């Protein structure tokens, strides 16, 4: 499949790609920065974008006409799309079991088998309990919802294989975005196994480059089944190029070799005690994955500390507790001051926020005001930011951009990767002692990731302390010494 797609969102926002390629009956991975249009292009091809909302042309044909083409009608009947934000696509008035059993899913075999495999961390009774809940009252976590949607896609694959000889198109938009590495790997394994049996066409849109390492390790004998491409911005238009997976693996291997393996044992800037009670759970820190002896989370000056955990355990919650945004019982020493749940929020406001602590939030799109300009994002800081200092930071993370032009751009027109780099600059330019990084490479492509890693290493060399939270373990293991890794359970 090779198509040209043009989607006019508004007068000033046009997504255009001259040649969007998809290898038939292969597992296609498409990488690239978030927010540049990968999702909309793939939804337009499947015919699931609303006809009247945008002006769409595919291969020079108006969208209404495109939807009437015989091949497209067939695609529309035999496809499944796993949305990247599953919350809005689950019915609130049906139990999860009802939702995976209605319509075409009612007679599908292997339902239990798939569910058990995706919810490997739950007992049969726990899976039963989960499936019998309504999304609204129970509020499944992002990871649970994503697993339910992926489960539906596997059922649909089964369903199409039973009913027709033709296997259809299965598009997964960031199917692993809310999953920890272990669950992600199980999902990928399940995906590949389904593919090998039924051979449909898969399209997986993702920023998680570390999937490549897992595939190379697990499915080296099936390498011809995978296609890796990258979508990038070339001026106003989008282009698609082959992604060299070997170059990525080579870079990763070299980076790990060059990683500093010894920590400096410099002065402690923050200590957080284990045993934090939140949402009916007790959270503890451990020095290794299987250890039973909890410890305190320690941050040292000029070092990066990595907090790892399965999805939904509470990594972001811990970050928000440290920042004083969630109120619960905790004990922390920060720069010589003992901080607990009794410390008034005004202390955080007057002495910590923007002075000793700063944070990069995981959701790049939601962390910035989309209606303002990039320049305005730096206007209201507690201290005046000199233009030369700002330019210095921007040149490190946006080397190919015109600084003045970028400052005048509306935040809403930036890609997800660009937004997250700006979030990073906002948090670092204040030169606080500690910065918490919650998924700092969200939405970035590989070149953006490399720039961010170099930038963080420079900051560490200048004496900055970081607490890192990320599920991109392959990538961050290249800069964090193993001694500075903690596990949250």
């Amino acid at each position: 499949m090779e198509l040209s797609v043009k989607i006019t969102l508004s007068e000033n926002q046009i997504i255009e790609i001259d040649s969007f390629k998809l290898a038939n009956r292969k597992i296609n991975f498409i990488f690239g920065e978030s927010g540049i249009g990968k999702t909309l292009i793939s939804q337009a091809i499947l015919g699931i974008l609303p006809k009247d909302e945008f002006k769409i042309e595919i291969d020079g044909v108006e969208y209404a006409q495109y939807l009437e083409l015989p091949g497209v009608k067939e695609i529309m009947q035999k496809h499944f799309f796993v949305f990247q934000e599953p919350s809005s696509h689950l019915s609130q008035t049906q139990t999860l079991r009802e939702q995976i059993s209605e319509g075409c899913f009612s007679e599908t075999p292997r339902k239990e088998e798939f569910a058990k495999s995706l919810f490997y961390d739950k007992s049969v009774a726990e899976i039963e309990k989960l499936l019998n809940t309504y999304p609204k009252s129970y509020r499944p976590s992002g990871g649970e919802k994503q697993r339910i949607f992926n489960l539906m896609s596997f059922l649909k694959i089964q369903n199409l294989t039973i009913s027709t000889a033709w296997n259809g198109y299965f598009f997964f938009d960031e199917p692993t975005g809310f999953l920890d590495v272990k669950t992600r790997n199980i999902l990928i394994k399940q995906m590949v196994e389904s593919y090998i049996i039924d051979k449909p066409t898969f399209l997986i849109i993702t920023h998680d480059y570390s999937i490549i390492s897992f595939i190379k390790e697990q499915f080296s004998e099936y390498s011809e089944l995978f296609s890796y491409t990258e979508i990038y911005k070339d001026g106003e238009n989008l282009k698609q190029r082959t992604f060299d997976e070997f170059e990525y693996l080579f870079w990763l291997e070299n980076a790990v070799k060059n990683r500093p393996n010894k920590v400096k044992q410099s002065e402690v800037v923050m200590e957080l005690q284990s045993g934090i009670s939140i949402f009916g759970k007790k959270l503890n820190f451990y020095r290794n994955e299987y250890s039973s002896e909890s410890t305190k989370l320690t941050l040292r000056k000029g070092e990066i500390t990595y907090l790892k955990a399965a999805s939904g355990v509470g990594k972001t919650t811990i970050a928000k507790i440290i920042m004083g945004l969630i109120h619960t019982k905790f004990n922390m020493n920060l720069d010589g001051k003992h901080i607990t749940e009794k410390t008034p929020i005004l202390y955080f406001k007057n002495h910590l926020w923007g002075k000793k602590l700063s944070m990069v939030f995981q959701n790049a799109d939601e962390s910035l005001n989309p209606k303002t300009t990039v320049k305005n994002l730096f206007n209201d800081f507690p201290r005046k930011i000199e233009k030369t200092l700002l330019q210095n930071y921007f040149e490190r993370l946006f080397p190919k951009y015109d600084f003045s032009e970028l400052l005048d751009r509306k935040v809403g027109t930036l890609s997800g990767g660009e937004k997250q780099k700006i979030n990073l600059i906002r948090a670092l330019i204040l030169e606080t002692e500690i910065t918490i990084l919650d998924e700092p490479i969200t939405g970035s492509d590989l070149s953006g990731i490399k720039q961010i890693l170099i930038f963080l290493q420079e900051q560490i060399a200048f004496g900055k302390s970081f607490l890192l939270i990320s599920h991109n373990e392959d990538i961050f293991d290249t800069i964090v010494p193993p001694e500075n890794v903690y596990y949250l359970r």
Partner: protein
Amino acid sequence: MKIELKARLFEYFKNFKKDKFQLWVTIYLITLFAILVWDLLFLNSSAFKMLSSAIFNTFVISLFAVLVSFLLGIFFAFATEANFRFNSVIRFVVKFLLDSINSIPQILLLLSSYVFLIIFFYNKELAQILWLVFSLSIIFANDFFIEISNRIQYFKKNEFYNASLVLGISERKIIIKDILISNSKNHLLNRIILVFSSMIFLFSSVDFIISVGLSTNLSLAELPKTLGNILASLDSKQDILAISMLIKNPLYISEILTTHLEGISAASILILTLISSYKISNSLIQKMKLY
């Protein structure tokens, strides 16, 4: 130059098909202007003077009251939503006051405010107007408070509120600049349009009620001239009743449009303002996707 103007006008009118907001604003302004020109031509000069000052008073008092209630709404929203500006006692008092105001029907509140007006400000025109503005503003401040609070609460759930807060940015700046100015101006404009029309309706209704004689202590001469009390005058009532003549004699329309203008104009302007505000607000919601 002429061709360019023609092209611009053509483009402007062509836009009506997809931009109903522009269409209804134009309809409102042109019709209002047409009524005034018609009155200037056919209404006697003292009646025209009275009508124009009534329109001016009604609109200016209502606009001023909208502005004051908007500012009160912002203050109330800040007092209850901004975490670092006010302490919990002030929050409780503001919330209690707002709930109390909310529990009383608007018309009762305004009627009782007229009683105060008579007792305290008898024969002091400026004080009367200020009292009117204040009482109208208090009644509608709650509408703005709810709208502004909802916007603040919505964005507080959004990550950019916390992301800005932990960088040491003041909460006041986040709420005013980021939430209200850059992300809520169309919502607030829509609320201003709705409150303005409700304000005119309530103000004119109460004025009408008092003018037709529910109050024995207050006479029309002591209050600023408004569309409500023009409608309540004997002449205007006759003008409106004259419309019934059209059933027997449709040709009487020419008489109505030339000799019964005072009451008909006041009623038309009120109806036009209410319908247009409703349409303008609805089309703004559609245009800016405020749902």
